């Protein structure tokens, strides 16, 4: 299905450029740091992931070890408003990159939300979650476009979700059909 005829390919490229230009003009600078609303959004998105997180599963906010400011920001997020998957509560925790990889390998976490400080370690985390069914997410689309992270989520000003099919495959993640039809994929 990925093979395209030259005309549609050119049309698509032109449209991409047009769309990117318009978005660049209209959206202003991209924001990378996660907010409590982004965390809520990610928790809700977990309801459309296969495998579905178990009751009481952990949504970990990942920060770079050795960065006290990043750690404090992650802990603030983790201490924020409780998140739920439908009626099932999820647990929030702030973890370092190393802890995140360990948790993923032992399958004790449902999702890892990488804060800005952890993004340089995205490749290491991607290797760590391979085949585990653990979802990785960030709030900026770059790592998703490079297939390092499964989901980019952004709650404001408009809910946007971008998924990497390649990263999802590597992580052992699937999505509900309806969800796939409503998000952007690459």
């Amino acid at each position, binding site marked *: 299905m990925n093979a395209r005829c030259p005309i549609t390919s050119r049309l698509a490229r032109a449209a991409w450029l047009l769309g990117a230009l318009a978005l660049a003009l209209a959206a202003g600078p991209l924001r990378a740091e996660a907010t409590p609303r982004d965390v809520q959004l990610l928790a809700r998105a977990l309801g459309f992931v296969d495998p579905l997180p178990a009751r009481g599963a952990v949504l970990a906010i990942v920060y770079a070890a050795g960065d006290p400011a990043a750690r404090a920001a992650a802990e603030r997020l983790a201490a924020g408003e409780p998140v739920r998957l439908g009626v099932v509560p999820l647990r929030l925790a702030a973890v370092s990159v190393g802890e995140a990889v360990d948790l993923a390998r032992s399958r004790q976490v449902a999702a890892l939300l990488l804060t800005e400080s952890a993004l340089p370690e995205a490749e290491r985390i991607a290797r760590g979650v391979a085949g585990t069914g653990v979802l990785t997410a960030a709030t900026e689309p770059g790592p998703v476009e490079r297939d390092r992270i499964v989901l980019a989520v952004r709650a404001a000003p408009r809910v946007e979700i971008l998924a990497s099919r390649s990263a999802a495959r590597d992580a052992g993640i699937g999505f509900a*059909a309806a969800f796939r039809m409503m998000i952007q994929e690459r």
Partner: protein
Amino acid sequence: MRRLSAGLAAALLLAGAARAQTINYGALEALFGEPVTASATGKPQRVSEVPVDMTIITAEQIRRSGAHDIPTVLARYTSLDVQQYAATSFSVGARGLTTPMNQRLLVLVDGRQVYLDDYGRTDWYNLPVQLAEIRQIEVVRGPNSALYGFNAVAGVINIVTYSPAYDRVNSVVVRGGTHGYGEASGVVTAPLGPGSGIRLSAGLRRETDWLRGHTPLEGFYGIEQQPARGQFAANALFRLAEGVQLGFDASYARSRADDLTVAAIFGTFDQQTWSLRSRLIADTRFGLIEAAIYHNALSTETLGGVRVTQGVTVAQLSDTVKLGAAHTLRASVEFRHNALQNEGGPTLHYNIVSTGLMWNWAIARGLESTVALRWDQLSLHGHGYETPPSAFANAAYDRGIGVLAYNAGLVWRPSELDSLRLSAARGIGLPSLTDLGLHAVSNGVLVSGNPRLAPTVVDNYELGWRRRIPAMEGHVGVTGFYQVNRGLGSSLGVAPGLLAGLPVPAIVPVNLGPARSYGVELSAAGRLPFGFDWGAEYRLAVVEGDLAPAVINYLDASPRHLLSARLGWGGGPYRADLFLRYATTMSGYRDMGQRYAAVTVDDYISAGARLAWRLDEKLTLAVEGSDLLHERQRQSIGLPARRQLYLSLRVDF
């Protein structure tokens, strides 16, 4: 970390029974922060991304409307043509041309047609659904035959109820009002395990009709002064396996009420409808597969004791699949068998085989195209038409019709706030079963269908823009449309005439010719300080045409200008909502026996309101009113509308 790990291990032992779901609209709406619909293309979409002109009325808006029927909800939140001819008699359409018993708007409940194929109408009073069980009302303006087939020409209204598997809705509403109004309804939901549940609903209503304004001829046939109805519906969904659900629903409704017919005369319809449906929905690696089979049955007795029975059986199969990152395809097939039995007379039936394909392409971020095509092949058969007086022989009823419908749309979101939509569509309106094959002699006049009628073809082009305005937590929108209708049918809205070879005068439907409709729709809504919110919908529809003279008066049937405006306030346990509607002049005819009298409706403003007091978590008491500005006011070619006040108590449990 150690403590976290121990907690995790314990939590994971409680591995949830829930698994990947089929479409859960409530969860998707919570995720995306806006209503979600599959009524535009068959693919689940955010309402801000659909390639059609769509309004979604939410459950909260329905509750705040203070309305106790769906047409009134539509009148208070949209600029649809909502004509109310009597207390329980409505016709609803879009973009003009809305005559009594409007055939041009397809209405569904959870995707099941409730549009009645006998006259090609919707009996809003008979709909087997309670307002409290509705999640949202999806209103599509413009043709959508490429998804729904015949009769989705002026628009589509899909009434979506809560899911018995995911939503727990339990409530009782008791309402009393002036002029003998009494109503009781209830909805109860019972979970049957993860992904499974059942919902039951029922309602009873009676009142005294508006009464004043009937013609002597209507008095001759008899007027129902105390319309009444009873309804029951059951809806169940069972999770068979991961991502697979089986659904059943059933409904029954009985109503006895007056309705203004297309023949320009009120008739009392004593009507029973029932339905049975089974659905299978599976989220598979081959996409979202949906199969459904249902039967709708109708038995109705009207003017002069004419009784007809009609039944339609529909089998549908569709697969909606996302291929790669950017393409979603929906392939569908449908079979439809429809039959009309004139009591003690001839029978007419047709089969329709349909196939459709929808292709949605996410060309780039913020840019999507959708193209949908559908072919419907109809084969019509009739027998028993030899008995004189008969306008057509049996052979005339053996006929085939094949038509192609399409919808094409381009949606571009140039910014986070703006959405531009360009679309073109062709919809096909099929003559109703009555128009094709009624056979009755009433008061010395033969009322006969015409099997040679051509379908109405509607081409619609539109351009829309919508902008979210975060500062006022609202939006503004504008849509321009141009629509060409070819072969508009008269239905039974023609005067009796003499046909060659017939000993009696006959009413026989004909195709009247073409008509154009063009105009603009404006929409705005937002919030204000101190708990206020507001909304306004305006529609200009200019209708022109070259139609043969007929009793059905398409060109002047709808007001050129329509404005619906609302203002709401909420504070603590109190809630107040005010609704205003302004419409310019329109006209039509009423049958006086020896002649047809023209009825002109002047410009008018009407008002409705609701004042509610939430007594506690479960109890809400409300005073509601409609047509508040005048004791009686002409708002349609039917009976003058009457001021009405209600007191309602709602219990949620």
